[in-house]
């Protein structure tokens, strides 16, 4: 994905917040589950089809003080992983 992409969450995905803000993202159709830390949870909650990845990264930097510059790349890599496993996608634009 590109920083300007606006990913949207697959509505079938379950966010299981477990303890200390850690969570599991679970796809009941495939049984695939991915554990994630509080930053990942925050990213997931910001994925709404309207915000771009760079906007999400900016919000994360505000929410998590001390987030390193590399976090932008990490967030893109995280969302790429989510996309590869069907957790998020991009809406097709109408022509």
């Amino acid at each position, binding site marked *: 994905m590109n920083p300007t992409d606006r990913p949207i969450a697959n509505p079938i*995905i379950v966010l299981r917040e477990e303890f200390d803000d850690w969570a599991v993202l679970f796809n009941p159709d495939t049984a*695939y589950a991915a554990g994630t830390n509080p930053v990942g949870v925050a990213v997931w909650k910001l994925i709404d089809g309207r915000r771009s990845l760079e906007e999400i990264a900016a919000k994360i930097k505000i929410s998590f003080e001390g987030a390193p510059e590399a976090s932008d790349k990490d967030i893109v890599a995280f969302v790429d992983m989510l996309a590869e496993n069907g957790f998020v996608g991009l809406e097709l634009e109408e022509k």
Partner: protein
Amino acid sequence: MPGGSENKIEPSASRIMRSPRSLTLEITARCNLRCRYCYFFNNPAIVYRDLPTDEWLAFFDELGSLGVMNVTLAGGEPFIREDLPSLLEGIVRNRMRFSFLSNGALIGDDIAALLARTGRCEYVQVSVDGSCAEVHDSCRGRGSFDGAIRGIRALQRHRIGVAVRVTIHRNNVHDLENIGRFLLEDLGLSDFGTNAAGYMGSCRGNADDILLNAEERMEAMATLLRLSAKYGGRISAQAGPLTDGRMWLRMEEARAQGKPAFPNGGRLTACGCPTHKISVRADGVIVPCTMLAQIELGRINEDSLAEIWQNSPALNQLRNRHTIPLAGFEFCAGCLYIPYCTGNCPGLAYTLTGQVDHPSPDACLRRFLEGGGAIA
């Protein structure tokens, strides 16, 4: 990096999740069979009453809101419920997967096709206790073997995962070699699981005819260990002779060599289920486990499952069972295996001793040896 682990979700014993990951739901108290060692029937703690469809559907909505991932539908015989399509629809709608514990006899192509259509069925566990009708039916009733195999074939035709469980008892302990060949070679299963009939429910009234004596237990352990090696790990167990055979060998080796205590040894560390799962009886009462049906934690649709999960004193007492040292029990006094022992199943401990917070005599290596048993 926002990601954590993928497909590796290990529960922590020291922290409680906000909600259970999975539940076992006894969706019916009815069964088409009356197996002689059934843990479910003839249990004075159980109220044999079924809930209406709407009650289960409302509960599934609560499970969905809590992010529960899986439910195991059990009974009784879960396929006896006439409203199964509605129940499965409720499970799917609430973004959960499901599995079944069944005797297989009510599964035909219509049921198998229904499960396949959902795309959410993890597996159906079918009980097969013999390589032929004579052995299997000896404890489960005439026709039950043919029914189980018909059910398995139907599931296979519809590509539903089949998990066969073999419950070992006095009538099939001499048939294990044939059972292994039948299941893995003739039926073409990838694997199967084993356990042993336990002193619960109907078995309590038939114990002398059902439960293995020391000699039979040795035979079962030796045969299963050999078959497990022969079939390359395609035979599994979480309890019963195969587990005992493996564990007791490790314990004896550790004792003989004076090895340090096992990480989970010396305390009542078994089992870890209350950290990630919980159960509901057919009458809607929430219990820690179907093997601990007498510990009533609340009732579905009346009490909050999240509240019970996080704050129930009885459930937390069970979770803290791992802090209880075996050395404090008179039953364990002087035992050289204490550093390597987990105390085993609290359900069997309760049914055999009347106490949940007690080691299970059934899985006690010293008791087995004193009773004439030996480990190779």
